[in-house]
C-alpha cells in the first residue's frame, strides 16, 4: 500500500497540483519573476486563435480516428467471428499492431506516404493525386489518422470479438429459425447487444486519439505543416517545452485533465446503467 501511495502522491498529485497552481501564474522568459495572475492564462487561451484551432483539429482528428477505427474493426470482428475453423489465424494476424509503438507507426506511415520515395505516394500520383503531407494540411491529417487507426485496430477487434462471443448463440439461432437473414440479424440482435462494447470503445478511442497519438504526430508531422496537425497534447508539449510558456502550458494541461475526467465520468455513468438492464 505504502509504495503505491508514495508514488501516486509524488508523481501524480504533486504534479497535478503544480499544474493547477502554475496555470494561475505568469512567468517571464528567464524565470526571474513570477506573478499571480488568476484566470488570465485561461482567458488568454480563450482568445488565442491557435488554441481554438488546435481544439478543432483535435476534434476532427479524434472523430475520424474513432469512426474509421470502430467501423473497420467492427466489420473485421464480425467477419472473424463467423469463421469457424482457423479463426485464431486471423486473430493473430490482426493482433500484432497492438505491439507497435505509436511513434513507429508514425514513422512507418510517413515512409509509405513520403512525398518522393513513398510507395503509396507513387500509386496516388499515378492516379493523378499530388500527395504531399509536408505541404498540404489535409494530407498530413489523413496521414496521422491512418497511422493512428492502424495502430488501434487490433485493440478494437479484440474487444469486439470478446463482445461478440458473449452474445448467446440461442438468440441468433432463434432469429434464424424465424427467417431473419444475416444482415437483419446483425442489425436487430447483434448490434444492439454489442452497443455497450461499442460505446466503451468509443470513449477509449477518443481518449486514445487525444493523448496516445502524441507520438504519432511528433514522429510523422511535428504538428505541421504550419499548425495543421498540432493536436492539444502536442500543443501542451510545444508551448511548455519549446516555447517555454509554462503558465499557458499548465492551463492547457488543466483543461485536458477536465476533458479526461468528464469523459471518464460519462463512461462510468454508462457502465453503471448497463448493469441494470
Amino acid at each position, binding site marked *: 500500500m505504502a*509504495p*503505491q501511495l508514495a*508514488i*501516486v502522491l*509524488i*508523481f*501524480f498529485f504533486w*504534479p497535478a497540483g*503544480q*499544474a493547477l497552481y*502554475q496555470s494561475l501564474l505568469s512567468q517571464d522568459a528567464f524565470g526571474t519573476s513570477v506573478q499571480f495572475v488568476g484566470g488570465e492564462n485561461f482567458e488568454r487561451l480563450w482568445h488565442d486563435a491557435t488554441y481554438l484551432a488546435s481544439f478543432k483539429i483535435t476534434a476532427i482528428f479524434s472523430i475520424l480516428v474513432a469512426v474509421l477505427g470502430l467501423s473497420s474493426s467492427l*466489420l*473485421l470482428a464480425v*467477419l*472473424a467471428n*463467423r*469463421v469457424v475453423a482457423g479463426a485464431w489465424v*486471423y*486473430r*493473430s*494476424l*490482426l*493482433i*500484432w499492431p497492438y*505491439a*507497435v*509503438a*505509436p*511513434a*513507429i507507426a508514425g*514513422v512507418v506511415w*510517413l*515512409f*509509405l506516404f*513520403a512525398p*518522393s*520515395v513513398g*510507395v503509396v505516394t507513387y500509386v496516388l500520383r499515378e492516379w493523378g493525386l499530388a500527395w504531399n503531407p509536408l505541404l498540404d494540411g489535409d494530407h498530413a491529417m489523413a496521414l496521422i489518422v491512418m497511422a493512428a487507426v*492502424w495502430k488501434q*485496430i*487490433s*485493440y478494437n477487434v*479484440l*474487444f469486439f470479438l*470478446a463482445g461478440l462471443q458473449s452474445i448467446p*448463440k440461442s438468440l441468433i439461432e432463434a432469429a434464424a429459425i424465424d427467417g431473419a437473414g*444475416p444482415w437483419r440479424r446483425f442489425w436487430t440482435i447483434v448490434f444492439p447487444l454489442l452497443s455497450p462494447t461499442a460505446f466503451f470503445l468509443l470513449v*477509449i478511442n477518443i*481518449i486514445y486519439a487525444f*493523448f496516445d497519438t502524441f*507520438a504519432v504526430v*511528433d*514522429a510523422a508531422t511535428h504538428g505541421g505543416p504550419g499548425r495543421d496537425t498540432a493536436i492539444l*497534447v502536442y500543443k*501542451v508539449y510545444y508551448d511548455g*517545452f519549446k516555447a517555454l510558456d*509554462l503558465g499557458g502550458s499548465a492551463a492547457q*494541461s488543466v483543461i485536458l485533465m477536465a476533458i*479526461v*475526467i468528464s469523459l471518464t465520468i460519462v463512461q462510468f455513468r454508462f457502465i453503471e446503467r448497463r448493469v441494470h438492464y
Partner: protein
Amino acid sequence: MVENRPALTVLTHLTLVLGVVIVGFPLYVVVIASTQTAQDIVQNAPMSLWPGDSMAENYRVALWGGVLNNGGRVAPAWPMMAVSLASALIIAFGKIAISLLSAFAIVFFRFRFRTACFWLIFVTLMLPIEVRIGPTYSVVASLGLLNTMTGLTVPLMASATATFLFRQFFLTVPDELVEAARIDGASPMQFFRDHLVPLSTTTIAALFVIQFIYGWNQYLWPLLMTTNETMLPIVLGIKRLLTGGDAGTDWNIVMATAILAMVPPAVVVLLMQKWLVRGLVDSEK
C-alpha cells in the same frame, strides 16, 4: 454456425484476407525496405516490392552502428534496445508488485482512510501521463532523477489500472479461504504469498503483457527525460535517424531499426496472446 451459406462464407474470407493484407501491408513494406540499399529506395522510386540483398548489412549497421556511404554516422541500436528492455521490464514488474500489495491492503484490511486511499488511487486511472508532463517533469528534475532509470520508470508506475484489476480479482476470493488460512496459523503476509499470488498468476501474466508493451512503447516521457544518449530507448532512437528529410534519410537503416524495435513487443504479444486478451477484457469491466 447458424446456417450454411457458401457465398457468404467466401465473402467473409475474402474480406478478412483483404483486411489482413491492408493491416499487414505497411509491415511488408518495412521488411522489404530493410533489405535494400538506401540508393535502391530513393533512386528507383517507387522502391521495388521484392527483397533486396543488403539485409545483413543493414541490420549490422542498425544494431552496432557504423558509417554510411554518404558519411552519415548511425548510433548503434543495441544499447537503446537494452534501455527499452530494462525499462519495460522494470515498469511491468514494478507496477505488478506495487499493485498487488496495495490491492491486498485495500481488499483485506480495514484501516482508517481506507476509502480515501482507494479514491486517491482511483482518480489516477483517469489521467494519462501526457496530460501532466510539464509538472511531472519539474518534480522529477527537482528530485535529480533526469537521465536515470528511476526517473524513466517510476513516474510511469503511478497508475491505477493494475491495482483495479487485482482488486476485482481479490474481491472474488472466498472468505472461507482467508479463514482457513488463519485457522492454520498463517500470517497475513504468508496468506498473501502462499494463496493470493499463486491464485493470481493468470492476472499477473496478462498484466505483464500489457505493461511490457506500455513500457516499451513509451515516447513522450523519455523524450523529455533523456538528454543523454546512453538512456535513450529505441523508440526514440528511430526518430533521431530521421534527419535527412524526405529523400536524404537512410530509410533502409530506419526501417531495419523499426523492425528491431517492433520484434520484442510483437513476440511478447503473439506468445502471450491468450493472456493478453483476458487481461484487456477483464481490466475494462
